[in-house]
Every structure is written in C-alpha cells, then in structure tokens.
C-alpha cells in the first residue's frame, strides 16, 4: 500500500490520469509486481532507448578518441624506453671499447718505457765500464812509472850511500884521530867493511 502511494506520488507530476488509475487500482497493481520499479515493463522502452543512446555515444567516444589516444601514449612510451635502452647499450659498448683501447695503450707504453729504461741502463753501464777501464789503465801506467822512478831513485840513493859513508868516515876519522885521510882511502875502507 505504502509502496503504491509513493509510486503514485512520484508519477503524479507526470500525468494526472495515471495518478487516478494508480490510486484506484493500487492493490491490484501491487499484486501484479508492477509496483516494483525494476520489473515495471512500461519503463523498459525509455530505459532501452536512453541506454542505447548514451552507451552508443560512450562506445563511439571510447573507440574513436580515448582508446587510440591511450594506446598511442603507451606505444610512444614503449618505443622511447626501448630506444633509450638501445642507446644506453650502444654507449656502454663504446665505453667498453675505449677502456680496452686504453688498457692496450697503457700496456704498450709500459713496455716501451721498460725498453727505454733498459737501454739507458745498459748504455750507462757500458760507459761506466769503459771509463773505469780507461782510468784503471791510466792508473796502472802511472803506478808502473812511479815504481820505475822509485827503483831509479832507490838505485841512485844506494849508489850515493857509499860516498856518504866515505865522507862520514873521513870526517869521523879526522875528528877523532886528527888524521886526514883521503877520500879514496875512506871509500876503500867503507867498501871493504860493507862486504
């Protein structure tokens, strides 16, 4: 009853005759199930028409505008990401190649430096050896000469020892004995005692 009254009140604004029908046949109407709005067939045509219009329009908007737009947005993004990844891969390969080239050059430079060092060391060693040899031979020559001089001086000195001894003898004799001896006698005495 109370449902029907509500329904009648709702429809009142629409059509006056309908209201009368509803209030008169309220009970019978309710019994039919017509009072339950979702099962009221009189509203079907209107709902179907408006659903067709609105959903049809919605479908067209989705198909022609929204779906292509979102799919192109996603496509562009996917392309962009894969392109960026490719670019990153390419740059990585480049940097790897640069590192490899750097390593190789470093090795080469190290080898070259090693070689240069070795050469310099060898050369310096050879020069030092040569100069040492020279100095040594010079020194040897000087030593030999000095030895020769020493020998000569020694011989000369030994030769003069007799004369000095004779002179000394002569002087001593004359001092002590008061006898003048000749040089020749002194020399003879020295040489005889030295034997």
């Amino acid at each position, binding site marked *: 009853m*109370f*449902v029907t*009254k*509500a*329904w009648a*009140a*709702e*429809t009142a*604004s*629409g*059509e006056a005759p309908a209201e009368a029908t509803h209030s008169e046949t309220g009970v019978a109407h309710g019994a039919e199930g017509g*009072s*339950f*709005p*979702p*099962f*009221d067939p*009189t*509203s*079907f*045509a*209107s*709902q*179907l*028409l*408006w*659903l*067709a219009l*609105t*959903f049809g*329009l*919605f*479908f067209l*908007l*989705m*198909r022609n*505008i*929204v*779906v292509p*737009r*979102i*799919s*192109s*947005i*996603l496509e*562009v*993004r996917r392309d*962009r990401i894969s392109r960026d990844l490719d670019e990153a891969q390419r740059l990585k390969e480049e940097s790897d190649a640069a590192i490899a080239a750097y390593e190789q050059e470093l090795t080469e430079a190290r080898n070259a430096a090693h070689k240069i060092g070795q050469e310099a060391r060898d050369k310096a060693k050879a020069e030092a050896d040569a100069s040492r040899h020279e100095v040594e031979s010079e020194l040897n020559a000087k030593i030999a000469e000095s030895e020769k001089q020493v020998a000569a001086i020694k011989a000369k000195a030994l030769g003069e020892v007799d004369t000095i001894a004779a002179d000394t003898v002569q002087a001593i004799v004359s001092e002590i004995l008061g006898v003048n001896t000749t040089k020749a006698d002194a020399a003879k005495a020295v040489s005889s005692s030295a034997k």
Partner: protein
Amino acid sequence: MSNDPIHQFHLNKLIPLEIGGVDISFTNSSLFMVVTVAATAGFLIWATSGRGLIPTRLQSLAEMSYEFVASMLRDGAGSEGMKFFPFVFSLFMFVLVANLFGMFPYFFTVTSHIIVTFALAMLVIGTVVFYGFYKNGLGFLKLFVPDGVPGLLVPLVVLIEVISFLSRPISLSVRLFANMLAGHITLKVFAGFVASLSAMGAIGIGGAILPLAMTVGLTALEFLVAFLQAYVFAVLTCMYLNDALHPSH
C-alpha cells in the same frame, strides 16, 4: 515514504516524452546514464589530453584502467581478442562508473534495473553469436560439441551446452542487477533502522548504534561489490568473446 527501501529505484519522468504511444520519457535513470557517460568520457579525454610521456596522476589513472582491461581481455581471449578492446573497455567503464555513482546518497543506480543489465548482456551475447558465425561460419556450432566426448553422451552434452549458452545472458544480467539491487536495499533498510530507532528516545538512540555500524560496514562492502561486479561482468564478457574466437574449446 523516506524509509521505503524500494523508493530509490523509482523512475521519475524528468522530461515526459511519448512517440507512437510508447513512453520514452527522459527519466532520472536516463539522467544518470548521461551523467555516467559524460563524467567517464570527460575524465578519460581530459586526463589524457596532455599525452605526457611521463603521465600525470590522472593520466596514470586512465592508463591503469586501460591496461587493467587490456590485460583482462588478453588473458581471457588472447591477442586476437584485442579487436574487441573498445567494446569491453566501454562496458567495464560504464558499469563501474554507473555502480559507483549509485553509491552517492540520492543518486540513482542505473545498473539496478534488470532491463539495463539485460540489454548490456544481450549486447555481449549478440556480439558473440554474430562474430562467432561471421568468423567461423557453421564451425561456431562446435562450441556445443566438446572434443573427446563418447558418442553415446554427445546428445546429452550438446543439450547441456546449449542450455548453458542460453542461460548466459540471464546469469550475466541477473548477477549484476541482483547484486546492485540487493546491496542498495540492504543499505537502505539498515539506515532506515537507524532513523526509526533514534525516533524512539534515549534507548532507541543507544540501540541505533548497531545498525549504524552495520551501515558503515555495508557501505564499504558495497563499494567492493560495485567494483567487483563491473570486473566480473567484463571478465565474463572476455570469456564469452573467447568462445566466439576459438569455438573448439
């Protein structure tokens, strides 16, 4: 009258129209169909108008709904099913937004009328039947004869398959309609308890706490149902479309 749980499903003629004795008035239901379509399409078009490589929050939401439906359709009907994407996307968004709009107090729930859900279900089944015969010819009838059934059982199985196929539009439409209708009636009944109990004085107000808590819980549940029923509707659409694309199971 305000406590009548059925009242919310009444159609009010906002602009009475009649053609050839058929009532095609612009009702509150029509109004909410228009609002649903305008809001959804407006949002999707506006949110994606920037076409940003890096999406804004709203564009991200539009893209998420797109990808949600796209993955649902691809899982359900394979990559060939993607030609139906605009259709499934429209269905999902329309049903979802219509259900969610129904959650606003004083708003009309478009999907709480069986004729609306039945029309959408018939649209799905019509598409399946039409496209199934268009693509597979009579091979579409293989849908009713599963492979590897012993000869004796074939008539029985075919009978069962035919009945199951014919009941699809009914189950599809009744599921959505009944969920929305029952949910809204339950909400209204419990909310009505709150109002009528609190009119009974101090004890009544104390007692009204229980139905109030129930109403709060049910509101959350109804939001879940609103989303879930749109999802179920779209998933089943994908599965039925899969039958049209690949009838031999």
